[in-house]
């Protein structure tokens, strides 16, 4: 029971990182991409290859995973991001499957016995789950802060403008294509990092685990929490993983069919769209200028 609870926390962390990336693509810039499983796959493989074949440490493979998936994201993004809404969705779905198919063809059995991650001499053993929970959630926090800052910077605002109205954005001097690509590459890189943590925890990679279902789960995470809202996305990841491991957690694996969770994810997408398209927490409303206003106003009063 505690075991599964810890597992939920670990995977919630991994999915939260992935969802932060998906949120950058879908929530900030409004592009419905369905190939996050692909970036996750690339990140995992990059880490596995770096650690096992080139003997690099986990900490070096982390940026490497991000860079590799970022580059692939760029190569994918440059041609496909011209497509609008529905077409982009189908094209990225195809790309996600291509990545998985290529991985399956090149490396059907996967890679196992990947060296463990280490930090100041402390070795992250898979059985020591709390260490992983702390490690992964520390990175969730880091990426949360980095991407919140992005959203509330000029760059993030330009991405939101692209989401709201591309024509208006262009009329405001925003290079729409550039921001789409930047957002997509950042999202892809973060997806890769999530893959890196997954590998560090399971110490194996196998192409069978990067199905379309993963992409939908990530999308579901973002939609459930609230598109464009960093906190909400993390909350979404916890809920989704809780649903995912609910049968194991309650010991009802024999009663609840294996498909139940997927059906629930589907249901979540429909129900959220119909009843609460802004997600559980809704949009992140950042009030520029007003955060410090009370203090500012007081000073002024004192001055007068």
């Amino acid at each position, binding site marked *: 029971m505690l075991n599964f609870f810890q597992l939920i926390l670990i995977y919630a962390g991994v999915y939260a990182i992935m969802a932060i990336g998906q949120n950058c693509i*879908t929530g900030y810039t*409004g592009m*419905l991409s*369905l190939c996050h499983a692909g970036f996750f796959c690339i990140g995992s493989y990059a880490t596995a290859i770096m650690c096992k074949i080139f003997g690099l440490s986990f900490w070096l493979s982390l940026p490497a995973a991000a860079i590799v998936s970022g580059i692939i994201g760029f190569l994918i993004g440059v*041609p*496909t991001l*011209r*497509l609008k*809404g*529905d*077409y982009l*969705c*189908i*094209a990225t*779905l*195809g*790309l996600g*499957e*291509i990545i998985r*198919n*290529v991985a*399956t*063809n090149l490396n059907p059995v996967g890679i196992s016995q990947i060296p463990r991650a280490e930090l100041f001499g402390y070795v992250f053993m898979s059985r020591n789950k709390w260490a992983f929970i702390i490690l992964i959630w520390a990175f969730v926090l880091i990426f949360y802060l980095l991407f919140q800052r992005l959203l509330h910077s000029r760059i993030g605002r330009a991405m939101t403008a692209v989401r709201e109205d591309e*024509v208006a954005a262009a009329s405001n001097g925003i290079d729409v294509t550039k921001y789409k690509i930047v957002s997509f590459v950042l999202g892809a890189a973060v997806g890769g990092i999530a893959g890196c943590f997954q590998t560090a925890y399971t110490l194996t990679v196998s192409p069978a685990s990067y199905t*379309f279902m993963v992409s*939908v789960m990530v*999308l579901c995470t973002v*939609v459930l929490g609230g598109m464009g809202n960093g906190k909400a996305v993390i909350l979404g990841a916890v809920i989704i993983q809780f649903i995912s491991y609910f049968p194991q957690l309650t010991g009802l694996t024999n009663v609840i*069919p*294996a*498909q*139940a969770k*997927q*059906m629930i*994810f*589907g*249901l*979540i*997408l*429909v*129900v*959220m*769209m*119909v009843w609460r*398209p802004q997600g559980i927490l809704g949009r992140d409303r950042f009030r520029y200028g007003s955060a410090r206003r009370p203090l500012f106003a007081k000073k002024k009063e004192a001055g007068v």
Partner: protein
Amino acid sequence: MSTFTLYMQYIVNGITLGAIYSLIALGYTMVYGILKFINFAHGDVLMVGAFVGLLVYEALAGAAEPGMWTIFCFFIAMLASMAFCAVLGMFIERVAYKPLRNANRLAPLLSAIGVSFILSNGAAWIFGTTSRRFPYPFENDPIHIGGVTITPHQILVIIVSVAMMVLLAFFVNKTRMGKAMRATSLDQPTSMLMGINVDRVISLTFAIGSALAAVGGMLAAFDFRVYPSMGTMTGLKAFVAAVIGGIGNIQGAMIGGVLLGILEAVGAPLLHIPNGMRDTVAFAVLIIILLVKPDGILGKNEREKV
């Protein structure tokens, strides 16, 4: 066998395959024409159609020897499956898409992905993930015409598809409701002002599209067997067929389907694509078509009005 007859054979196979794609593509195209969104769940409706058809057929024909009776059973199963899917299609529209008609563009798309997930996993839950064979309702002895082999099931596929398309063309072009449908796809607000019940037209579009998908699913079942995720790849290919023909264009979907079928049947052996890479190549072609010819061969170039 000479190269010529070999390629003739591929083309015959391609046309059969393409006829199925066309039937399914019609559903995508009709919905897009009216609602301007891609019904992601369409592929899974096809799967449901195949399952319902199979169940009804098995219940009626049982272990009967192929003959007139089984052929009759097949058509009854097809009608039952069409009716079931028509209702299913209308139900999906009513529950998952109608409330989102004025929402932003991503909302119905996400909802459709959700529906697709519910259907395919629901089917996996009820029927299990193993694939089932759809028995031929007749002796499937091939007929040889000058070196080219045609099986009765291929003939059935082509006859049924052509009949369905003729019926659809008649409906769309000659009936009042068909006219209303065309009007709605041209200009929704104006049609509403002209007294057309747009909700009913949309419902009907989903019903017809889903019924055609049911037929497509049953015909595809002969070649591809029946399993819960059969709709994904077939649906995607049919979608590409709709894009090739110009999405939103009914004749285009018919032509696009046949074109894609031939392309697939001829292209795969011509380029010596290994089996493991087939889906990869199919996806790559899909993306290339979306990028290079998003308006299709019969589509009109729609640009966003500033």
